[in-house]
C-alpha cells in the first residue's frame, strides 16, 4: 500500500523532472528571503518552471554566472569593469529590489533616536571620533546628554553587500575614508571589532555598552531594534524606511545608466535615505539554452507585474516606477 504510493510519487516526480524547466541561480544572501518567496510563488503559478536559488554570497554569484555554471547570478554590489571583462559569459544587471543600511547603537540612558551625519559616522570608524561626548555628535543631537565613554565601533567581519553599501556611502561623504579605507564587501577597518553577519553585529551592539554598528534595515525592523537617522545630501536627517529608500532610487533614476550599475548612496532629494542600494540579478545576455532564457524572461516580467508589489510587506523597497519601465525594456533583450 505505502510502497505503491511511494512508487507513484517517484513516478510523478520523475515525469515532472523530465518536462519541467529547471533554472539554477546563485548569489547574494541579502535578497534571499524575497527571492525564495518569488520563486516558490512563481512555481505554483507555472508548475513547469522550477527556479532553484542558492544564497552563497554575491562573490560566489558573480563567479558562478561568469563561469557559466549557473543560469543566473545575483549580487548586492555591481560587477567591476575588470570582472565584466574577464567573465566568460556576458551578463546584464537587472535591479530587483532595494535595501538600506541603518546605524545602531547602545547607549545607556539615551532613549530617543539619534541623528548622525555621514562624516561623523566615517570618523567614528576611522577612530577620529573616539568618545560619545565628542562635540560633533552632540551638534547633530541637541538636547541629548552623551556619556564620556569610548565608542566601540562594530563592523561586519564577513564579506557582505551590507558592508559594501555602507563603505560606499562613507567613501562618498568623507574623502579621508575614501583614501584610507575605500568601498568593498570587506575592507581594512582602522579600528573596532568585527562580528559575523547582521546577527553578530546586532548581538554585539545589544550587549556591549557604548557600541556603534550598522545592520540591514530589514534586520533592524525584524528584530525591533532602535536605529538612528542619517543626514542625506540635502541636509535633512532621514530615518530609514522603504519609502525613503524608494525615494532615493527615484532620485537616482533620472541619471540611471543603461547597464543599471549605479550606486544610489547619498542620493539627492529631501526624502531620500542616503545609505540605500539596489540589489541585482545577473542574467546572461546570450543563454546556451533558449528555452531557459525565455522562461527567465517570463519570470522577470512576472516579477515586475506582481512580485514588486509584495516587496514592502517584507520590508524591501520596491523599484520606483521609472526604473520598472526601464527594466521592462531591457528584459526584451534576454535571449
Amino acid at each position, binding site marked *: 500500500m505505502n510502497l505503491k504510493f511511494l512508487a507513484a510519487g517517484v513516478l510523478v516526480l520523475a515525469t515532472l523532472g523530465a518536462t519541467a524547466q529547471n533554472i539554477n541561480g546563485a548569489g547574494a544572501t541579502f535578497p534571499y528571503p524575497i527571492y525564495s518567496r518569488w520563486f516558490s510563488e512563481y512555481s505554483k503559478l507555472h508548475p513547469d518552471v522550477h527556479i532553484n536559488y542558492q544564497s552563497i554570497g*554575491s*562573490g560566489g554569484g558573480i563567479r558562478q554566472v561568469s563561469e557559466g555554471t549557473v543560469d543566473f547570478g545575483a549580487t548586492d554590489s555591481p560587477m567591476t569593469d575588470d*570582472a565584466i571583462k574577464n567573465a566568460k559569459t556576458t551578463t546584464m544587471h537587472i535591479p530587483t529590489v532595494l535595501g538600506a543600511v541603518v546605524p545602531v547603537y547602545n547607549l545607556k540612558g539615551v532613549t530617543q533616536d539619534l541623528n548622525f551625519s555621514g562624516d561623523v559616522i566615517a570618523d567614528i570608524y576611522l577612530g577620529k571620533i573616539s568618545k560619545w561626548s565628542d562635540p560633533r555628535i552632540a551638534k547633530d543631537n541637541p538636547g541629548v546628554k552623551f556619556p564620556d565613554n569610548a565608542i566601540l565601533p562594530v563592523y561586519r567581519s564577513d564579506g557582505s553587500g551590507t558592508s559594501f553599501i555602507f563603505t560606499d556611502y562613507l567613501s562618498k561623504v568623507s574623502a579621508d575614508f575614501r583614501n584610507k579605507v575605500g568601498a568593498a564587501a570587506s575592507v*581594512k577597518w582602522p*579600528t573596532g*571589532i568585527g*562580528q559575523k553577519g547582521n546577527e*553578530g553585529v546586532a548581538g554585539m551592539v545589544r550587549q556591549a555598552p557604548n557600541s556603534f554598528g550598522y545592520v540591514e534595515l530589514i534586520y533592524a525592523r525584524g528584530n525591533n531594534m532602535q536605529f538612528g537617522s542619517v543626514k542625506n545630501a540635502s541636509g535633512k536627517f532621514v530615518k530609514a524606511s522603504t519609502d525613503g529608500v524608494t525615494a532615493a532610487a527615484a532620485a537616482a533614476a533620472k541619471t540611471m545608466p543603461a547597464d543599471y550599475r549605479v550606486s544610489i548612496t547619498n542620493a539627492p532629494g529631501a526624502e531620500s535615505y542616503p545609505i540605500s542600494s539596489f540589489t541585482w540579478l545577473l542574467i546572461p545576455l546570450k543563454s546556451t539554452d533558449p528555452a531557459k532564457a525565455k522562461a527567465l524572461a517570463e519570470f522577470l516580467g512576472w516579477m515586475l507585474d506582481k512580485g514588486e508589489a509584495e516587496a514592502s510587506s517584507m520590508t524591501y523597497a520596491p523599484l520606483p516606477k521609472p526604473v520598472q519601465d526601464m527594466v521592462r525594456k531591457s528584459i526584451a533583450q534576454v535571449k
Partner: protein
Amino acid sequence: MTTEREPGSSMPLPSLAPTEFVGSSEPTVVSTEPSPIREFLSKRGSGRLADTSFAVVMLVCALSIFAIVLFIFFILISRSKLSLIAFGWKFFMRSAWDPVSGDFGALPFIVGTLETSFLALLMAVPLALGVAVFLTELCPRSLRAPISFLTELLAAIPSVVYGLWAVFVLVPIMREHLGPFFAKTLGWTGLFGGANFGVGLLTASIILAIMILPVISSLTRDIMTAVPNSQREGVLALGATRWEMIRTGVLRNSRIGIVGAIMLGLGRALGETMAVTMVIGNHAEIAKSLFAPGYTLASVIANEFSEATDNLYLSALIEIGLALFLVTIVVNAIARLMVWAVTRGAPARVA
C-alpha cells in the same frame, strides 16, 4: 578493569592454564578431529597470492594518505599562484590585509592563530592532566563514570554551540568581571592593557581551552589507565607516597601518549573556526594586549571567502589556507622533535 577475586577461589595451577581456553566443561578431552581453523586453512589452497594482494591493498591504503596530503598541497599552491607571484614568500611576513587596494599578508593571522592556540594549551593542559590523574588514580568509583561521561559529552558539543555560549555568557563575564580582575592583578605585565570589550584574544583562548580540555583529558585518561598496575605497585612497594607514585609510576610512563594527546588538542585549536570567529573580534592587527581583538587564519577564510570576487584576493585567501597547512605541519614537527629529545634513550628514571 580488574575483576574482584573471591577469597575462596585460588589461582589455577600453571600447568592447567592452557586447557582453560579450550572449554571449561571437558578440559581434558583431546580431540583427534582437525579444528575448524585448521580445516579452513587446509581447504583454501595456497595463500601466497592472497598474502601478496593483501599487502598491496594495505600499501595502497597507506599511500593514499601521502596522496591526499600531496594533492591538498598541490591544489593550495596552484590556486594561490597569483598571490605567490605577487608577494613571494614575504607574504607570510607581511602584516597588510587590504582587499580594496589588493595588498595582502598573513602575519597578523599567523600570530593570532599561534597566540590563541598556545594560550589555550597553557590553560587546558594542567587542567586536563588534573582531571585525568584524578579520574584514574584518586577518584571514588561512584564518581568515575559520571565525570568520564561528562568529559566525553563536552567533546561532542559542536563548536558553533560553544561559540554561542561564549557570545552570550563568556563575553559579558569577561567584560564585567574577569577582564577588570586581570587588569587589576596582572596589569603590570603589560599583557592586559587597553580597553576591554569582552571580545578579543583572551576570550578566544579561553573558549579554545574549554573546547580542547575534553579531548586532552579523555585521551590522557585512557593512556594512564593503560599503565600496568605492576608499575604502580612496584613504586608503592619501594615506599613512595601517592604523589610520587603518580609522578614516577604513571605520568612518566605515559608521557609520550600525553604529548600525543596535547598535539591532538593543539590541532583542534589551530584549525577551530566558528567559535573563535564569534569572539575574537576579527581585526587584523598584531596587538600587545590580550584584550585587543585579533584574527586567525581559519577565521579570515570563513569570513571573507564567500564574497571575494577579485582574483588576487581569492588567491591570497587560498594562500592563507596554505599558511594554515604549513603552520600545522611545522608545529607538529616541532612537537615530534620535542618528544624525541625528551625520550631519547631515557629509561624510566626519576625525573
